[in-house]
């Protein structure tokens, strides 16, 4: 392979990106050396097994990916803002809508949710950490390795360009001969393994590490949603693993799964992809439901309405999510019976979802609603998500889908589901739990400004797409002529996209501003919360709970506050903690190189990297580190210091 094939050349935008990547990396390296932070970085972050720090790293990575995916999105909107626009060429446009989709779903939405899960779940259930802290670090570093592998594709070798669903035969070696789709199969594979491990870890954590007395039906709703999500993860992700494996075989070893000859079957890829892909939608949406439940009930000052039916509806959704995948290809030509069946199962999901919407509305009923920033996002979610939901029902009707399929109507629908359903949720959760992690709130006034920008711009960006779809504009078109009449609405959408960009910049600016100027929170409970995480000082000490509280009912902390009793007045004992370990990080690096070499089919280095992976795993197996104990005096000391005048 020649060097000019190795690096992507010929596009000024990409040269700009390359220069900025090099500059930023240099700045980071120089900065770390200058401020002598290498040791700190290694000890406190790269080797950490603390769920809170891992959560923070997930969220940080997700924010960076949000901007990467966001830049893709703005470029797409810019290219289609006017007829016959010459900003990007077809190939470049194809690459960015592919990476936009993959990054936003797999490297933004999921890690953001995993970040919040990591930080909050052990705190909500009264646990010292997750069940397997080191596995948790492995999960993170595998996700990170996958994300980095995927992201270097646009400067080294070229990005995938066959859509985030990578339909064969287009994504096959014949029609996509360059390495882009190898990046797709390997980056997703590596981060997918990490995701699977996260799912396992959280099921065990939630099933086995709850505080005494906290039965399943006394768990906070976010914990419930994460439990159910994790169940979906462990049964859905293996399907992706297999699909990606077959994809890699087809592209790199000449197998005939999805090829056009020798019996290969292109739609089988689509089938496998969506067997995973539809549950995946619920993997990113269900935790969001959990987050909204927490926030709405906190700021309505009421317990969650219909707790039981909320849980049941999530269980029903998790089961149904495995029964609907064929609605992604109604137009394949299968029988009306197949389409009818999948239409009905798909529409059936609207029922439990509707139950949840009404339960949220009735949580507000007779409440005393405070419009804080996290609450604003949660309240904005209800009407906007309902539009996404009802258009989802419309799309679920197989016959009508013949007219919506692959059009901007579909694009509008899933943005109306995923942005309020996931993005608003993670932003709301981010604002809501930020003080728990960092000890101060994000500024409310600036947060609300960003909120209004985001909410209004979101609708301006995506509502026109419903009409564009009905006008016959298909998705993934990099250009269109003036006669089509698609111009004005696309322009409007571009205006919205600019507004969204400003909104997100304001959001990040608010983080910076609040870090510098926002007063510190000394109570540990700035929102007058209901669940256990608010019973601890902020930031939470490394061992979480000095004494694990006893639980007798839902919202135990809320009632304890009202009765004026403390949840932590038992005797403090020494606390067992897991030791930090550099091996997960090393494993991540080994996987990164393994993936990278396989992408380019450089087999000798790939085998070396593969052996490195196995050796790191063996080293972990032989590791007999049992962790360490924090002595009682140290716990007492730090509790006194953290709780300040409260104790």
């Amino acid at each position, binding site marked *: 392979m020649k060097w000019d094939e190795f690096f992507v050349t010929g596009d000024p935008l990409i040269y700009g990106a390359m220069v900025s990547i090099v500059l930023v990396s240099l700045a980071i390296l120089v900065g770390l050396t200058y401020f002598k932070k290498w040791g700190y970085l290694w000890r406190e972050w790269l080797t950490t097994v603390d769920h809170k720090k891992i959560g923070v790293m997930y969220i940080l990575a997700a924010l960076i990916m949000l901007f990467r995916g966001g830049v893709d999105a703005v470029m797409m909107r810019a290219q289609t803002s006017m007829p016959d626009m010459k900003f990007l060429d077809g190939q470049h446009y194809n690459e960015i809508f592919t990476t936009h989709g993959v990054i936003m779903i797999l490297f933004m939405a999921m890690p953001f949710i995993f970040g919040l899960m990591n930080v909050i779940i052990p705190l909500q259930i009264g646990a010292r950490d997750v069940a397997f802290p080191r596995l948790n670090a492995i999960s993170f570093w595998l996700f990170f390795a996958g994300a980095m592998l995927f992201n270097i594709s646009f400067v080294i070798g070229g990005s995938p360009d066959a859509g985030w669903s990578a339909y064969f035969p287009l994504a096959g070696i014949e029609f996509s001969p360059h390495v882009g789709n190898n990046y797709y199969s390997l980056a997703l594979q590596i981060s997918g393994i990490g995701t699977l491990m996260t799912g396992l870890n959280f099921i*065990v954590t939630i099933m086995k590490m709850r505080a005494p007395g906290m039965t399943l039906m006394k768990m906070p709703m976010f914990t419930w949603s994460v439990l159910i999500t994790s169940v979906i993860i462990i049964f859905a992700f293996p399907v992706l693993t297999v699909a990606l494996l077959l994809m890699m075989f087809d592209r790199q070893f000449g*197998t005939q799964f999805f090829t056009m000859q020798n019996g*290969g079957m292109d739609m089988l890829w689509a089938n496998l992809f969506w067997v995973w892909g539809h549950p995946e939608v619920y993997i990113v949406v269900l935790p969001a439901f959990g987050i909204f439940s927490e926030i709405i009930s906190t700021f309505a000052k009421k317990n969650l309405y219909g707790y039981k039916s909320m849980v049941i509806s999530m269980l029903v959704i998790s089961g149904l999510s495995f029964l609907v995948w064929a609605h992604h290809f109604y137009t394949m030509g299968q029988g009306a019976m197949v389409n009818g069946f999948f239409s009905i199962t798909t529409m059936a999901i609207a029922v439990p979802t509707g139950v949840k919407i009404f339960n949220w509305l009735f949580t507000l009923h007779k409440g005393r609603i405070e419009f804080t920033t996290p609450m604003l996002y949660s309240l904005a979610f209800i009407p906007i998500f309902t539009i996404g939901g009802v258009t989802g029902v419309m799309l679920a009707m197989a016959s009508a889908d013949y007219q919506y399929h692959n059009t901007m109507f579909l694009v509008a629908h899933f943005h109306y589901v995923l942005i309020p359903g996931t993005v608003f949720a993670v932003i709301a959760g981010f604002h809501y739990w930020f003080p728990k992690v960092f000890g101060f709130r994000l500024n409310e006034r600036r947060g609300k400004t960003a909120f209004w920008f985001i909410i209004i711009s979101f609708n301006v960006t995506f509502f026109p797409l419903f009409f564009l779809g009905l006008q016959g504009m298909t998705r993934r078109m990099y250009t269109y002529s003036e006669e089509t009449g698609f111009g004005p609405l696309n322009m409007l959408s571009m205006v919205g996209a600019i507004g969204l960009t400003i909104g997100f910049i304001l959001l990040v600016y608010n983080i910076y501003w609040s870090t510098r100027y926002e007063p510190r929170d000394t109570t540990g409970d700035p929102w007058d919360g209901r669940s256990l995480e608010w019973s601890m000082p902020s930031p939470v000490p490394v061992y979480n709970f000095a004494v694990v509280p006893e639980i007798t009912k839902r919202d135990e902390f809320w009632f304890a506050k009202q009765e004026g009793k403390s949840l932590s007045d038992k005797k403090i004992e020494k606390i067992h903690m897991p030791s930090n370990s550099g091996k997960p990080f090393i494993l991540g690096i080994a996987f990164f190189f393994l993936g990278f070499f396989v992408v380019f089919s450089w087999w000798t280095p790939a085998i070396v990297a593969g052996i490195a992976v196995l050796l790191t795993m063996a080293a972990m197996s032989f590791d007999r580190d049992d962790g360490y104990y924090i002595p009682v005096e140290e716990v007492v000391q730090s509790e006194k210091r953290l709780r300040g005048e409260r104790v």
Partner: protein
Amino acid sequence: MKIDATQPLEYGTEENRNKIFGFWLFMGAEIALFATLFTVYFVLVDRFASGPSGADLFVIGPVLAETFILLTSSFTIGLAVHSMRLGLKKQMMIFMVITLVLGAAFLGIEIYEFFHYVHEGAAITTSAFTSSLLTLLGTHGAHVTFGLLWGTAILLQVRKYGLDHKTANKSFIFSLYWHFLDVVWIFIFSFVYLKGLM
């Protein structure tokens, strides 16, 4: 690290119980993984293009041998865990070694079989059918291979540290894994080979 003496060693600590529980969940994921491979196989089984079909390819002899070897190894790993619970380190190690040797024998026959298939004109690139067949078998074989490496690592640890709550826990989890591979093989035996020969 609280050790609960009323339980077998491998269940002795909370961490151990979590690990066993977690591994069961992992096997749930593995069921989904193999189910997907079976799906692919069932969909593509008749798409053998100009290559051989299952009926042309399969020979019952080696397959039966593989089946009996794997069933026996599943039996011996069970006995290993049984000895472990009795605290018989040496016997446990012997059973484990037998298991690994049987595993290696299974793998040997499978590799021989693959050569035979390629010889018959059924390489992995021949047709959708051969791709799906060899990927399904290969994934199972890769699991067995990984099991051999893993089992050896555990055996070394048992020899070095004796049977404590850590090594016992690992050995027990390994036994679950090995039984699981046997279960998968039973389905391959029934729905790939026997169905193909029907």
